[in-house]
């Protein structure tokens, strides 16, 4: 088996025992990137020299961290000091991060190696990575299809074996949906579990950083490392962080999971439906009792999400005005013109659409009818989850209503927004959600199961996801291209 198929703990253990050099691990991954990148195009920038230098430093250390030599790809809206952070936007095309995000500092402290920055929908706004200002990323399972989004580059990099693990960010499903499309594991932690210091803000009441990995165990390990206190993010809860990889393997025992009645009447691809029901039947064999519950706010969650996310985006993105950093248009007569020309030329179409929608929803005369109404709807979604979790341990849904769709298939924005139908509710309520691969469509495309849990119960999510992973024997989730080549 090649180095690029090892689990994170395998890499760490070999590097720590000096049976393998971190430098060799990184070289193997860089070779793989060179081979796969022309087809997949997951990275905006590959930082080969920096990664090798860092790997050599790890090799020289006597005491090695729990991610020694592990190559991690990072979504290009998370800052790594001295590296570009473009957010997939022209407006930040030449922006060099002046400091590192907390999650990066935490991973670096455990001797992870950052191998490059991955492509995304501009500022995280999209579900296919096609709204990146630079290029489209392709799904390694079928190069004519999207990898999902907005963390499509991170998901594709892990699926193609170009990184052992990756970080993404999830505002309405941006880690879980691409994880499902690319056949990898993706977690959106509880809001308040992981520091967002150094994550470029899109919608601050929804954004969370989360890992994308080949196995549930890898996901548990990364989550353990990136979670916990920071002091630089006031939305970070002061909660103990369990030893997720250890707890994950403890016996789960009998559990109760709920379907949402309203969710299952959505337009769902027949293959997704089929695999979903098979997986759910499998949960019964694992000791699960499945019940169906009413969730009347379900159909309002998506429009509610789009009002809140767009409103917060219009406010957060007001900072890109060409004054302090980023692109400044050279053609202007006065200050106001500089703002307008910079923003007009610097932002792409989807970003403009959301800024305009958000500006409208917050504008005088419409605030009560749109933003405030959405804020109250959000409260209703939270209350319905609370009611559900009084009776069950988990809520399960498909992660996405369909498998990866062809590039260029969704030109109408509303059709694209429907891609997030199953994922946005967890963001609205601040709940943790994981996507775990649970099967393949008839065309051979991966399908994900989403498991949503109670606040701060990621440990329970990992326990069930781990069992699902074993149960479905999704053999090719470790390195799909290798697997296909070997077959």
């Amino acid at each position, binding site marked *: 088996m090649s180095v690029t198929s090892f689990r994170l703990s395998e890499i760490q253990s070999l590097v720590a025992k000096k049976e393998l050099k971190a430098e060799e691990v990184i070289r193997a991954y860089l070779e793989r990137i060179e081979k796969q990148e022309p087809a997949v195009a997951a990275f905006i920038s590959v930082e080969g020299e920096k990664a090798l230098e860092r790997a050599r430093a790890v090799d020289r250390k006597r005491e090695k961290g729990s991610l020694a030599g592990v190559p991690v790809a990072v979504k290009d809206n998370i800052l790594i000091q001295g590296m570009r952070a473009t957010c997939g936007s022209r407006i930040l095309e030449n922006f060099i991060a002046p400091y590192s995000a907390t999650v990066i500092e935490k991973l670096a402290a455990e001797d992870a190696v950052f191998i490059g920055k991955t492509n995304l929908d501009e500022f995280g706004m999209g579900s296919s990575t096609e709204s990146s200002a630079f290029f489209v990323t392709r799904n390694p399972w079928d190069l004519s299809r999207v990898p999902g989004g907005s963390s499509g580059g991170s998901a594709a990099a892990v699926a193609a074996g170009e990184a052992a693990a990756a970080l993404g960010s999830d505002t309405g499903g941006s880690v879980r949906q691409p994880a499902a499309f690319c056949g990898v594991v993706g977690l959106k932690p509880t809001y*308040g579990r992981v520091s967002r210091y150094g994550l470029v803000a899109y919608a601050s*009441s929804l954004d969370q950083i989360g890992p994308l990995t080949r196995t549930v165990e890898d996901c548990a390990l990364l989550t353990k490392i990136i979670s916990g206190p920071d002091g630089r993010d006031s939305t970070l809860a002061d909660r103990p962080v369990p030893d997720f990889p250890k707890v994950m393997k403890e016996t789960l025992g009998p559990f109760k999971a709920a379907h949402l009645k309203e969710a299952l009447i959505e337009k769902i691809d027949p293959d997704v439906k089929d695999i979903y029901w098979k997986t759910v039947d499998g949960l019964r064999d694992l000791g699960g009792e499945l019940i169906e519950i009413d969730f009347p706010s379900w159909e309002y969650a998506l429009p509610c999400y*789009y009002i809140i996310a767009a409103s917060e985006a219009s406010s957060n993105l007001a900072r890109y005005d060409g004054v302090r*950093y980023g692109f400044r248009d050279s053609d202007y007569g006065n*200050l106001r013109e500089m703002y307008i020309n910079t*923003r007009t030329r610097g932002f792409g179409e989807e970003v403009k659409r959301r800024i305009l*929608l958000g500006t409208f929803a917050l504008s005088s005369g419409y605030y009560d009818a749109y933003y405030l109404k959405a804020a109250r709807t959000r409260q209703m979604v939270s209350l319905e989850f609370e009611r559900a979790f009084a009776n069950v341990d988990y809520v399960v849904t498909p992660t996405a209503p369909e498998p990866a769709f062809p590039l260029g298939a969704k030109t109408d924005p509303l059709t694209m927004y429907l891609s997030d139908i199953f994922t946005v509710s967890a963001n609205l309520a601040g709940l943790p959600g994981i996507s775990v691969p649970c099967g393949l469509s008839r065309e051979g495309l991966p399908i994900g199961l989403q498991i949503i849990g109670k606040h701060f119960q990621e440990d329970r999510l990992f326990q069930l996801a781990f069992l699902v992973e074993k149960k479905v024997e999704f053999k090719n989730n470790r390195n799909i291209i290798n697997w296909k080549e070997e077959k």
Partner: protein
Amino acid sequence: MKSSIDIDHVCALAHLRLTEKEKEVLAPQLAEIVEWVGRLEELRLPMSSQGPDSHLPFSLVFRPDEARPSQPLETALANAPEKAGPFIKVPKVIEEK
């Protein structure tokens, strides 16, 4: 909730400019999106105001208000589009009448 979106007004508020051609595409799209999000009107909801942190199962956490070292000047200026010595250069803020 029948509200038509005045695209020129919203563009002015957002510091964006659209060409006529872009308006032809974006205006109907936004109208459709606004109509779609307007579905929330059907809901009967309590009138209590909900802040952006109302979904949190915990209170916001603050650290003591103590001074900490900040970015050195060179770092803070490194990404500035135009500089003049230790300053960011911008066009005149107050226009002459």
